[in-house]
């Protein structure tokens, strides 16, 4: 097993053994369930399908799940000093980042999987009208897009957990970067470059997820998200190397 694999296993085990994982997953399920119920109530009689409403609702809460899953990653290591022992083991900085990213992503994906299973089981029981009305293909497309978005928010969270030693500060910055910054950018583009803003609207997280859940999978946001994941992980690796030089 590679060093990154060994680190991934440790991180994943530590996360799944912690109470925090179950609390944050329960909170995420409750929040996304509430979003779906609210969307169904408001959209009653409309054209929106259940997977579309579900994906749009879950997409909003994903940054919270990612922030909670990643806030400990590096900040706890820095605060306790274990980063020093980790970086004096035969493992490259990029492998450290990869191991931590994959473990945090797995934690998030576990929450996301539960958020798929729970409504799929519960909704037909709650409302017989919804039984058989959910297309599995549309649901799978929505899930795939949500997983890609989760990967991006996780990469952002990992980056900020290295920037900040305080977990709360890391989570707050991560949420700001995932929720506030894109909307601020969208608003600024809308004010100064309306044509660019219209093109960029297709990249909005909730809109893209909801659209995918209708069966229409746009490729450009997928590529864009993939590049941003890579970019944030690359930045984190650079920062880790710089931190190593400046530590002390």
């Amino acid at each position, binding site marked *: *097993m590679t*060093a990154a694999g*060994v*680190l991934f296993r*440790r991180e994943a085990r*530590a996360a799944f*053994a*912690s109470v925090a994982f179950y609390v944050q997953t329960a909170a995420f399920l409750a929040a996304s369930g509430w979003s779906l119920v609210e969307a169904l109530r408001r959209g009653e009689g409309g054209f929106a399908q259940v997977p579309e409403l579900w994906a749009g609702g879950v997409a909003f809460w994903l940054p919270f799940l990612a922030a909670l899953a990643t806030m400990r990653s590096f900040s706890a290591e820095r605060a*306790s*000093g*274990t980063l*020093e*022992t980790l*970086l*004096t*083991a*035969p*493992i*490259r900085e990029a492998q450290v980042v990869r191991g931590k990213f994959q473990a945090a992503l797995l934690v998030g994906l576990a929450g996301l999987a539960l958020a798929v299973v729970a409504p799929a089981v519960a909704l037909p029981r709650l409302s017989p009208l919804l039984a058989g009305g959910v297309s599995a293909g549309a649901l799978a497309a929505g899930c795939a897009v949500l997983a890609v978005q989760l990967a991006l928010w996780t990469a952002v969270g990992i980056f900020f957990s290295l920037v900040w030693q305080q977990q709360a500060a890391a989570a707050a910055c991560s949420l700001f970067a995932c929720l506030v910054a894109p909307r601020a950018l969208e608003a600024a583009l809308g004010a100064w470059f309306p044509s660019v803003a219209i093109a960029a609207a297709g990249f909005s997280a909730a809109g893209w997820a909801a659209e995918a859940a209708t069966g229409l999978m746009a490729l450009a946001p997928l590529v864009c998200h993939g590049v941003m994941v890579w970019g944030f992980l690359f930045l984190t690796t650079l920062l880790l190397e710089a931190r*190593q*030089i400046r*530590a*002390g």
Partner: protein
Amino acid sequence: MLEVSQIVRKFGRRTVLDGVSFDVAPGEIVGVLGANGAGKTTLMRVMAAYLEPGAGDVRFGGRSVFADRVGYHGALGYLPERCPLYDDMRVADYLTFRGRLRGLSRRRTARRLKDVAASCGLSEVLRQPIGALSAGFRRRVGLADALVAQPKVLLLDDPFTGLDAAHACSLRRTVAAASVRSAVVLTGHDVAGLAEICTRFLVLRDGRTAYACPAGNGDATALVRALSRAVLGQEGDDAGAALAGGGT
């Protein structure tokens, strides 16, 4: 085997290490002494390739350790000053994780775990969470971690702090045994204790080498007295003569 040459390290405008040079061969144990703030921990961090020096180099087997950190870290056992550990892990799990991270096979890790647990007095606490251990036991876990992969270079920053006299004596014997195949550098404040195992001493003062002397076969009491005075900066002419001759 391990050559430290003209190391200079600054934090801001403050020079912490200023032209420190020495070398260590396998079988040698070099004790680095100095008052608080003399630069011992920074020197150990530079030697562990955790911090990069502003000038100078550390060479292992003729190659700069900063050119091939991962290769060097594969041959390194390092115990940092604060002895950082993962409190959520059990002792056995932690040492297994560290062994696997250092590239040992599962079987070899299990065998080494038994050996280091016996030599560091950890056999009875292997199933206990690290967070529940006393400071003394934590140090022993840190030392076991440094020894688990049978390193060729062993750097121990203040390894005997927080241990009672009996355990400190037992761990000194463990370090002396490890020095058969390793080049060992350790720091500490207990000059008399270090004098039992060290083959050479380096006294740092304000980041510079104030004295470098062999332990010698002469009057150990005189050497300890002279070193203690040198650390405090209160050496006289007689102490200087004792340090030059290694206690003779």
